[in-house]
């Protein structure tokens, strides 16, 4: 099989992983070449590494990975309060949901048949 015939047809387009990977490798090579043209006198762990060095910098220790999702959780605050309330961990609630789904499915299908 050649690199050009390794094609996954998607109905509206196609995906050739080997060709995609080749382009990826070319891009990585280009990035490496551009990077290698950079400043050679760069010194690690000096002020050169800071984007800005004036002003009061926040303590890095107070920042955690979870903080990057703050905006997401804040925007969906009401959704999450409902979601947490649903996930009680109580087995009775699991069965209530099952019965609810049974009733909804039965109602929909019967209405569909009648109408």
């Amino acid at each position, binding site marked *: 099989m050649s690199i050009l015939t*390794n094609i996954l047809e998607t*109905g*509206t387009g196609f995906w050739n992983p080997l060709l995609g990977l080749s382009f990826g490798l070319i891009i990585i090579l280009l990035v490496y070449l551009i990077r290698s043209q950079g400043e050679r006198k760069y010194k690690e762990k000096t002020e050169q590494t800071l984007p800005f060095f004036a002003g009061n910098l926040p303590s890095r220790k107070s920042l955690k990975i979870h903080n990057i999702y703050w905006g*997401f959780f804040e925007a969906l605050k009401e959704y999450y309060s409902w979601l947490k309330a649903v*996930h009680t*961990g109580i*087995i009775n609630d699991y069965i209530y949901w099952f019965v609810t789904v049974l009733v909804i499915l039965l109602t929909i299908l019967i209405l*569909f048949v009648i109408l």
Partner: protein
Amino acid sequence: MLEHCLVLLIAVPLLAAFFTPLAHKIGEKLRNWWVLFSLVSIQFLVLVLAKNVIGGDIQVYTLGAEFPSLTSPAGFPIRIILEADAIAVFMALISVFAALVISIYSLRFIEKYKSTDKYYALLLILTAGMLGLIFSGDMFTMFVFLELLSIASCGLIAFYVHRGESLEAAFKYIVISAVAGLMILFSVGFLYAQYGLLNIAAISSALEFTFLDIVALVFLVAGFAMKCGAVPLHLWVSDAYGEAPAPISAILVIASQVSLYALFRISFTLFGALPLKEILGWLVIIFGVLSMFIGVTMAILQTDIKRLMAYHAVSQTGYMLLGVGVGLAVIGNTSALDAFGITAMEGGVFHIMNHAIYQGLLFLTAGAIIYRTGTKDLNKMGGLAKAMPFTAIFFLLGSFAISGLPPLNGFASKLLIYESVFRFSPLLSIIAILVSILTLASFVKVFYLAFLGSTPAKFQKIKEVPKSMGLAMGILALFIVLFGLFPNIVVDGLVSPAARALIEQFQYINAVL
């Protein structure tokens, strides 16, 4: 041997399970070799069967008949009939492969615990349960193997008997399994009471679209939706997957997918003749969208690595439901089916296989972390990439695959789903893409917390996991890359025949009648 392949596929793991404690009495090494040999033999049998069936043939086996292909001596099927078409063999290949990889991983993972003989015996019984459910040609046998699967799974979830949480998770699992099983048994009763038949093909051709048929359909759909962990019937998943040993969480994913297969078999084959396919397809799509979105949004919240992955498993099940649901919704419309319906189903079916591989790998990497650190709490981990570089690489591969990043296997199946579902409803496709982005966001957090940053003092001296555990993870990682680089070979050779087997229900029915 080919003639008896189907029955051997169920008999071998069952017999192997009962001989496992005896082999354990002689020695643990012999027991390990016995389990591995049994699973390799079953894998060989599945491959032999696949060679015959994937080409389009359907193989049947009538238990107790004069010869195995004698399915209806009195004009209708009266015996237990096993039936294998391309989708059944596809599921069997995944199930046995997963059981084999998990057994290799478990060799060192569980060696420090007592009752390892029971662990392997239950794992083999679970494998027999999955294979029995997959190949069952009649509803009651399907129910029996579902019960076998559930009981073995419950025992394995409760493996850490000294932990209250594990026992509670097992209790919850057996309760929901019993309720789902009861509903399935009721529906079998409704069908038998009306038609005097248990065989899927025979019932399918005899259906008269009565009120009881609709009730039976609802009970079956709800029962199998609960067993496969579709939202809002997913609440047990985080408990069971989260508290079971990591390799068992990986095989539970497969067990859930076997229930998903049963849901598809019911929708396409058993009730394929009823004029309800469009509405049924939409119901499956709604289950899928809810599973995708609620699963991933719950996963982002988690700090327990196993529970986080459990919610991702729920979310990924949504993609399969969405893909196959779209196919089901347009099955009556030939032009839509040809234009995008078959591709959507191929995407959904391919995702079953891909999900089994990358979700299995992710659970095994979680197990590797827990094996070395003794904690599931992500906030207590850190800097493990230095001490466990191979586990870190395997985790990254699994994370990229589940997030649908090219060129890994998850991307290939998701691309089929995105593009085909877009032609059905652009909104559904956009939701699917959004869920993939959220999945990546969730795994960025996990990778950072577990593998990057500073290493806590108590983890300074930890090492990489033993070789057998690394080998099991490596096998899955290899398949993630191979299926990602050569998806067309898998789709043409396995996935497409499996999807078409679901659509072409008359071939399944004609093989028995």
